């Protein structure tokens, strides 16, 4: 656990995701601020428990043409960045610069084959990341989204990655999907193959059309939905995964804006959370804000330690 000199330690907020110890359960989500080391460093200085890098592959990707982002009703966001990244070789200096300052960095990896995943992951590991998050779930890069919905393929990828990453924990990020039986199957397959945590969810597949020009609002045509709109869907997914009895921790993602939202994910079964779109809606100081809100909640409810909340949602016992 690397403590952040700019943020006072609050032992009640510390969490463990397997062997990874964090100062608090909020993590900067992949694709947000993380293109540049300065983004990773500044989110950590604001109080993020850890930061996930931009997803990076073996070769450079330019990503999709613009518009790459559009705001919809009620603070919803849709994006189709297309995972621009300079390729792992060129990206390593960004990670190393952050790691050097003591930032707890999680590396996000993609690959077009299990072997490519493994190569990228092993390079990430060598650059000093605490864990590797496998992105098998980007909804505007078809091959990835479909990969993440197939338990066998995911198990293949995980097996190869685990073989090359010397015990560094591997996390898998599930697709933004409402197909819970399948998400549970994928998570179970990944668990058997050796992942250390499940991250749920990536953005949900979506489409918005400008009626004046009759053209999709995003350059890629389709995109991924994020922000408050998807929170109830992702909380449900976390709850279903938790109830399925996984032995590894779950990291919730989707629509978190406040400390209360973090608590909601924990109650549903998460051990930690990631925050993306919130950086836009509540500014890049969202980590210090949610941190204070979580601490206030623990005080108000006289809770010793935030991890006590995981999975504590009361069952209302209705059988639909």
């Amino acid at each position, binding site marked *: 656990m690397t403590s952040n000199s700019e943020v006072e330690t609050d032992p009640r907020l510390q969490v463990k995701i397997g062997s990874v110890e964090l100062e608090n359960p909020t993590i900067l989500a992949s*694709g*947000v*601020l*993380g*293109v*540049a*080391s*300065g*983004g990773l*460093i*500044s*989110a950590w200085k604001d109080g993020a428990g850890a930061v996930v890098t*931009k997803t990076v592959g073996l070769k*450079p*990707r*330019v*990503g999709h*043409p*613009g*518009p*790459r*982002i*559009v*705001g*919809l009703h*009620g*603070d919803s*966001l849709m*994006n189709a*960045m297309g995972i*621009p*990244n*300079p*390729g792992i070789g*060129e*990206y390593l*200096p*960004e990670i190393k*610069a952050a790691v050097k*300052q003591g930032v707890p960095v999680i590396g996000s990896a993609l690959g077009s084959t299990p072997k490519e995943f493994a190569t990228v992951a092993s390079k990430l590991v060598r650059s000093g990341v605490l864990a590797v998050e496998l992105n098998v779930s980007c909804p505007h890069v078809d091959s990835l989204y479909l990969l993440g919905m197939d338990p066998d393929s995911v198990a293949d990828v995980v097996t190869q990655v685990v073989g090359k990453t010397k015990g560094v924990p591997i996390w898998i990020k599930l697709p933004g999907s409402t197909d819970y039986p399948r998400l549970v199957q994928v998570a179970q397959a990944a668990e058997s193959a050796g992942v250390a945590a499940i991250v749920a969810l990536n953005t949900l597949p979506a489409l918005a059309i*400008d009626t*004046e*020009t009759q*053209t999709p*609002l995003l*350059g890629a045509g389709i995109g991924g939905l994020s922000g408050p709109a998807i929170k109830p869907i992702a909380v449900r997914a976390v709850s279903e995964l938790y109830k399925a009895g996984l032995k590894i921790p779950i990291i919730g993602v989707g629509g978190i*804006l406040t400390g209360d939202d973090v608590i909601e994910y924990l109650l549903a079964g998460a051990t930690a959370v990631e925050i993306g*779109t919130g*950086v*836009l*809606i*509540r*500014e*890049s100081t969202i980590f210090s804000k949610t941190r204070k809100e979580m601490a206030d909640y623990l005080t108000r409810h006289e809770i010793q330690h935030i991890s006590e909340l995981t999975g504590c949602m009361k069952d209302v016992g209705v059988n639909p």
Partner: protein
Amino acid sequence: MIQERKTKKGPISLKHGLRHIVGPILQIREETPRTKTFTLSVPDIARTASPGQFLMVWIPGIDEIPMSISATKNSGGIVEFTAANVGEATSALHAMKEGDQLGLRGPLGHGFTLPRSVDKGPLLFVAGGCGSPPLAYATDIAVRKGHEVHVALGASSRPELLFRHRFEEKAQKVIIATDDGSDGIQGTSVDAATFLLDIDTKYAACFACGPEGMLFHLAELIVKYPIPLQVSLERYMKCGVGLCGHCIINDQGARVCLEGPVFNIESLKDSDFGRLKRDSTGKHLPLDTTDGSSTR
């Protein structure tokens, strides 16, 4: 429900910064052989914009690119930007006709901060290459507020002097510089600025936009005088609203699209300014400061 967010420099409407307002191009004017000005009516933008802020311009079916606002008029809600034809999106833009539809989102980022008082001395504007658009808009506002304005304007050659007449109309003094000597002094806009600084050192502030090499050179020069300097930067932009991190230039996470594009020169210490940029993949590259065109 959180609708507005406060940034260090004030509130930005999430709605306007993230959603295109689509409308027809009302007018297209050729400014120089490689630049055209596009006029649209978007009252929401015209009402709230300030000089140095920019738009994300959506060319439907093609791409979306950042463009500085080059003028606004409250009557009619007029918004203008001025684009050089340098690549795929800008050449598609140049091929468009009046009546064709564009989507604009903005105003984005934080622009120039003019001195509150007009008594501290004249303002110096230094425009190099295609750096004129935000500065022409800024001189409009500065003159309207009663400031005296001097301009150093540089280009490769005489026909490329962007907004020359607009500057000459508003400014007390305009010094021209061309690379080829076809007009004014032979040299860059920084040479023209030096000329002005040397005859009148009581400038209240200096505002500059142009190739980053030129801005860097100006920053080195200005310490001698010393005058507060604000520069408008360009970086490859993917989101334009501070989310993706593509345009971050230092360890504090300063985003050109949100905390910028205009920065006080002091805040650029220990940053990529004058040294590094990112390409469309996010790759960190040395900035080519010998090439006057930099990102433009």
